[in-house]
């Protein structure tokens, strides 16, 4: 997705240095994308999102010498690896763990409802719970679009679907979220 720049316009220089093995460049790649990858994996219900993030970046850094492309392509590549690692972990564990449900999220105690931080936390919990209750394909699309900042075409490539199918899944996912927010008093 154009406009997202996590390398302050220096991606080409960072990539070149990383491909020559410069530790500072490898560290910069990790620092730039590891938080969003971890957020994606956690939102998808990964058992060990931090360790899985490390696995993703081990694969990324070991193969970075072969990468050609811009930052958007790099981000798309990283999230494609992350999504595949996530599927591997799910297969290894046999099932996907349930995250906190919406009802549970509403029961999160807030000492003072006027406190902004508590409300924000409650909103974040609702967002996570809402993502978890989406159909898996819709969740994949929405999280890759919003957290990974991938285009429809990049999401389609990452998931092995057509761009049209991704658009349809995206539409349905956002409609479901909008409907739930309209029906419930969502503390966002």
């Amino acid at each position, binding site marked *: 997705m154009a406009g997202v720049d996590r390398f302050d316009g220096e991606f080409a220089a960072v990539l070149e240095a990383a*491909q020559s093995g410069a530790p500072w460049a490898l560290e910069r790649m990790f620092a730039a994308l590891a938080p969003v990858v971890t957020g994606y994996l956690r939102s998808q219900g990964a058992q060990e999102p931090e360790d899985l993030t490390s696995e993703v*970046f081990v694969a990324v850094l070991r193969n970075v010498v072969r990468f050609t492309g811009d930052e958007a392509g790099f981000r798309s590549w990283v999230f494609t690896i992350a999504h595949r690692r996530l599927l591997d972990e799910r297969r290894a564990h046999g099932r996907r763990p349930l995250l906190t449900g919406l009802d549970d999220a509403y029961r999160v105690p807030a000492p003072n409802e006027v406190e902004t931080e508590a409300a924000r936390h409650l909103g*974040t919990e609702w967002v996570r719970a809402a993502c978890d209750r989406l*159909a898996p394909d819709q969740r994949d699309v929405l999280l890759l679009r919003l957290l990974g900042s991938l285009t429809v075409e990049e999401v389609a490539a990452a998931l092995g679907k057509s761009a049209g199918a991704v658009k349809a899944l995206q539409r349905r996912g956002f409609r479901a979220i909008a409907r739930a927010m309209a029906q419930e008093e969502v503390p966002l």
Partner: protein
Amino acid sequence: MTLRGDDDGDMTPTLEFDDLIDAVVKGDPVPEAHIALATFAQRVRALGDGPAPTPTPELAALLAGRSGLERPQGNGRLAPAARRRGPLRRVVRLGLGASLAAAGVAGAGAAGMLPAAANNAVRGAIDAVSPVDIGRQDHPANHGSVISTDAKGDSDGEPGVDGRAVAESAPGAAHRADGAPAKPDTPPGETGVTGQDRAAETPAGTDPSATAPGRNGNGSTNGNDDPGSPPGQQPGSARPDGRAVAGG
């Protein structure tokens, strides 16, 4: 309850909704009626705002440059690691198995547990890759005549050995020609008592039933009349190195 947006009829028309989605995803301004959806998207993006997790040791080594990155091969953009994993693991397993087998044979050879021929083969193989001498039987003629400076104490000033004196507690010291204190009065074999005499003093010397195999006591043997041959051994069956050859 599961959230599924399957019923499109109750919401904004599709094309208009697609435009709304684009704005929401990009973070552009949206109509006030859809502020909540934009806030939702903002909250989802915020899920990735945390600090980078602590890398595992393997990743930390990579980040520090202590572990090598793969070198480019061919002109492919990306070669899936999983495609190479199977054959590579098989090769590693085969190599590991061969290494373990070789290590086992080498260990047995070094411990002297193998037949002589196999022992020599193992010794040769180890010599080819290791500077360690695991003990040849063909010692040179001057074996032991050279004394190291470490043994003599020249290297560190500590008193060592001169190569001539032999401790009394050392095995065989009594038979050394220059070991005056331990030197016996009469050399071996010069006491006037022969080995034959001593043999008669042993229990076997007086017990006819203890006659050595192959000898019947009256001089006749089972074809072995050579007094220099060990009991039960055919004349001329000994190898030049004095080791017996198994009779067949």
